[in-house]
């Protein structure tokens, strides 16, 4: 006589596992949703200049500020901090005095030569400090004449250049 097969397994422990997995998945889902809600445009800012607004000393730059609407998403910025008497080239942080600019083979010239080769991937951002109008205009002309793309930002006199933060956000630095 054929014996009727029966499954009398106790599934309560499996149920516990399923419930725990569902719990974990709910947490992951909530985390994902929160991430999407907090950044609906899915934007990660990798620039030194993070907002269009004025810089306020001691305040984090991103608070209440909106990103640039015509921002560039294709090229990497190379920053040049323009002071009255000197320039600071990033990321090397080389300091070039204005007098040195007349010398052939100076650090700016070398940087521009390098940039000319990589002009499809990189562009220059000039950070113009107060009182640098003449130097700034000369630099603008020099860079544009080399066929390198250019952007600029008016940068307050005592505003620090936190290059590392931008480089980290862009994945250029660990």
């Amino acid at each position, binding site marked *: 006589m054929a014996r009727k097969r029966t499954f009398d397994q106790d*599934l*309560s422990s*499996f*149920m516990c596992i*399923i*419930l725990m*997995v*569902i719990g974990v*998945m709910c947490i*992951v*889902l909530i985390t*994902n*949703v929160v*991430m*999407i809600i907090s950044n609906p*445009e*899915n*934007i*990660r*800012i*990798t*620039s030194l*200049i*993070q907002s*269009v*607004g*004025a*810089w306020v000393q001691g305040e984090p730059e991103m608070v209440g*500020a*909106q*990103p*640039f*609407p*015509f*921002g*560039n*998403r294709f*090229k*990497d*910025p190379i920053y040049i901090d323009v002071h009255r008497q000197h320039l600071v080239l990033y990321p090397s942080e080389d300091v070039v005095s204005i007098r040195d600019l007349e010398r052939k083979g100076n650090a700016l010239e070398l940087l521009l030569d390098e940039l000319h080769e990589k002009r499809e991937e990189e*562009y220059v*951002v000039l950070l*113009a400090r*107060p*009182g*640098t*109008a*003449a130097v*700034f*205009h000369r630099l603008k*002309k020099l860079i544009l004449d080399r066929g390198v*793309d*250019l*952007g*600029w*930002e*008016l*940068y*307050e006199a005592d505003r620090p250049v936190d290059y590392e933060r931008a480089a980290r956000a*862009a994945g250029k630095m660990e």
Partner: protein
Amino acid sequence: MARKKRGQGVVLDSFLDIMTCMLGVLMLMILLTGVDAAQIKVLIPTPIAHSSDKKQVFIECREDQLFLVPVAELRQLAQKELNDISQEAGGDMTQLLSRLAESSARTAEYKVDLTYALLGKFAIVSLPGAKGYRLLDTSKEKATDWYGRILTTLDGEKEMLTFLVRDDSFTVFKRARGLAWARKIEVSYELLDSEEPVKFGLGGSRSMAQ
């Protein structure tokens, strides 16, 4: 008689089915939201400057105030003045030069320095003590306010704002630029030394939009 064990009568099979289905749905949802959350666009905000054919509306930022530069009106005034001076001088260069230096082509905030006309340039000098517009709070700026009116009347398709920024007015410039960008209006800006006249014409170049 054997006692029936407690709890043995509860059949969990259908509940387990529901749970497994839920697990599947949750996995799908996590997958979709995960993909959405991971697709981060990288934005490098500093715009690349580019040339634009749009008509420029000039705003000067000085002493933390905004001034609309009436370029067309000043040009007309300067042209009229130049015509009068050249007629009066009648070819006498000394008289012409002295009259150019005494030019009175001016508005309430600006005057034209006609001596630059000899170099083929049109130069505007800001008049000291002129009162501009103080843009203190961007959130309170209404369409009926001075700057709000400029922004609302500007045709973003055909016109752009060009800011002439003096060293002492970075803050007001950034507020004004922020409002313009919020309305998707193209903006260009030039840095000027505090006493430098605004020059148009020979040797200059068109301001690039950002």
